[in-house]
C-alpha cells in the first residue's frame, strides 16, 4: 500500500464527493500552526499571522491536501511513519480551517491596522484552538458550528 495520504478506498470509505485524509496529517498541521502562532505572538507580527491566514485559506478553499502543511507532511513526515491506519473525512477539517481563517484574518488586521491588543487576542484564540486540536484531536471550530446554529434564528431545513 502507498504510504502517501492519498485516499485509496479505505475500509468504510466515504463517497467520492467526500474525500478522506490520513488522520496524522491534520494533527501534524495543527502542531505547525501552533508553533507559527506562538512565534507570531512573541514577535507581535501581523505578517506572521497573515501568512498563517493564507495557509488556512488554502486548506479551507482549495482542500486540506493542497494546504502547505499537508504537503510538508506528505514529503517530510509521512515517509518516516508506518502505513496509513486511520483516515478521516475532509469536510470537518475544511470547516475548522475556515474558522481558523476568521481568527487569523482578525489577528493580522488588528496588528497591521494599529490595534495590537485585538491582534494578540484573536491570535491567542486561534492558538488555543490549534493547540487543543494538536494535543487532543478536539476540533473547536467544528463544535462552534452547532452552538451557532442553535442561537441563530430558526432556518430549519
Amino acid at each position, binding site marked *: 500500500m502507498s504510504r502517501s495520504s492519498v485516499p485509496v478506498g479505505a475500509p468504510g470509505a466515504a463517497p467520492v464527493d467526500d474525500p478522506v485524509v490520513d488522520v496524522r496529517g491534520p494533527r501534524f498541521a495543527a502542531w505547525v500552526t501552533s508553533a507559527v502562532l506562538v512565534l507570531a505572538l512573541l514577535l507581535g507580527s501581523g505578517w506572521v499571522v497573515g501568512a498563517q491566514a493564507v495557509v488556512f485559506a488554502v486548506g479551507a478553499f482549495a482542500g486540506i491536501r493542497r494546504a502547505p502543511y499537508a504537503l510538508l507532511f506528505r514529503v517530510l513526515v509521512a515517509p518516516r511513519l508506518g502505513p496509513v491506519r486511520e483516515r*478521516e473525512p475532509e469536510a470537518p477539517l475544511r470547516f475548522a480551517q475556515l474558522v481558523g481563517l476568521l481568527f487569523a484574518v482578525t489577528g493580522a488586521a488588528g496588528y497591521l491596522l494599529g490595534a495590537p491588543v485585538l491582534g494578540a*487576542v484573536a491570535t491567542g484564540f486561534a492558538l488555543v484552538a490549534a*493547540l487543543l486540536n494538536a494535543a487532543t484531536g*478536539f*476540533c473547536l471550530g*467544528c463544535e462552534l458550528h*452547532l452552538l451557532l*446554529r442553535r442561537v441563530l434564528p430558526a432556518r*430549519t431545513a
Partner: protein
Amino acid sequence: MDSTGLLVLLVALPVTAAVAWWLRVRSGALRPAGGEGRDAVTGTPAEELVALTGLGVRPEEADLTVVQFSTAFCAPCRATRARLQQLQRARPGLAYVHVDAESHLDEVRALDVRRTPTLFYLDRAGRLLGRSSGAPRPEELTALVEAHTGVRE
C-alpha cells in the same frame, strides 16, 4: 519580544490545558439520567421523551435504544455511528436512531444538545438511562449495551 503577545501566550497555554483536562474527564462520559421517563403515577412522558418520540424514536420496540445527534462537520460523529452500527449487527435488541442535529434544531434546543455527537440511551420502558456528549467511551458503551440487550456469552 512583544509583551502583549507574551501575556496572551501566558493566558492561552493554561486555558488550553484546562480545556484538554475537562475534555479528558467529561467528553463522551455517560451521564446517568436518574430514571426519568414516564411518570409512574400519571404516565406522562418526561420532556426529553416527548422530544425524542417526536423524532420517531420508539423505545418500546427494542431492549435498548440509542439516539445519536450528529452534524456534518464532526469527525467523531462518523466514527461513533460506525461503532453503533457494528454493535447493532451483533445485538438484535439494540435499536439505533441517527438524527441530523441541524435539521432538528427545535429538538436540539429542547434536549439541550450542545455538542455532537450527543447520545441518548433509552430502555424498553421509555426510561432515559442517560446521555453522553462527545465520542462515547468504548468500554462504557459496550457495558451499557451488554447490560440491556441480554447478551449471552
